[in-house]
């Protein structure tokens, strides 16, 4: 069981309450596809991903970025039970989507960078610690059902 302090809970809910999903979701996924180009393997149906310009302008990428970010909402609402909350999503990513779970960590790092860029110095070391802890729990839950 993951233990959360009151401060950690309020940091996490605070970040998501003030988040622009339409802005950060696409940016995080775009960054991931550019910085870790092998992640593009999962998006061959998305059309043109040939270069950074194409990735940035791709509406499928943007839409998917928003979808993924909203996917984190359930974890924020169920922080004491993220493992169970994501059991089905984990099966989906393993059995249907066949995503290497290391990619979850890569996207999590890109999301951390985008939040850092957005919040600037308000993204303190304590904020970063809480946010990365949250994402680590999410990443672990998403990889849990792989076998």
């Amino acid at each position: 069981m993951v233990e959360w302090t009151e401060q950690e809970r309020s940091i996490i809910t605070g970040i998501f309450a003030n988040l622009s999903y339409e802005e950060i979701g696409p940016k995080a996924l775009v960054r991931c596809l550019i910085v870790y180009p092998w992640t593009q393997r999962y998006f061959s149906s998305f059309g043109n991903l040939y270069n950074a310009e194409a990735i940035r302008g791709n509406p499928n990428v943007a839409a998917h970025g928003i979808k993924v970010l909203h996917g984190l909402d359930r974890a924020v609402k169920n922080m004491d039970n993220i493992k169970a909350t994501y059991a089905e999503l984990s099966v989906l990513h393993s059995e249907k989507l066949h995503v290497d779970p290391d990619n979850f960590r890569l996207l999590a790092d890109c999301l951390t960078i985008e939040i850092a860029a957005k919040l600037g110095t308000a993204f303190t070391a304590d904020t970063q610690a809480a946010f990365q802890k949250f994402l680590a729990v999410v990443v672990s839950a998403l990889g849990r059902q792989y076998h």
Partner: protein
Amino acid sequence: MSLTAEDKAIVKAFWAKASGRAEEVGSEALSRMLAVYPQTKTYFSHWKDLSPKSAQVKKHGKTIMAGVGEGVAKIDNLNAGLLKLSELHAFTLRVDPANFKILSLNILVVFAVLLPAEFTPEVHVALDKFLAALSRALSERYR
């Protein structure tokens, strides 16, 4: 994943903008690493004060970024250029090389915090590759 000519150009251009704040970047990155990855504190058990404002953290942040700057200057041959630093980390400090990745991530986070407009995905990938190459050079003499 070796550095292309373009990667090197991007790294040098970004470093020209960031190096003026090297000390700030270094101490921020170090503080964040100690806070977010507490296992890294084990290497600093001889320090009295691990808080971000401590003189030791600030000084060490500066030392680390001087190493990064040396990497930028010797970007065309990191393994040979950083041999002495590698020997220091391998034989004296004996830092587990897994921690190089951790510090690298925190350096990138601080770049995003302090220079969000410049730290585009294109710059990010070049710097990520550079820090990975730097880490490999530092690991060169371990075994």
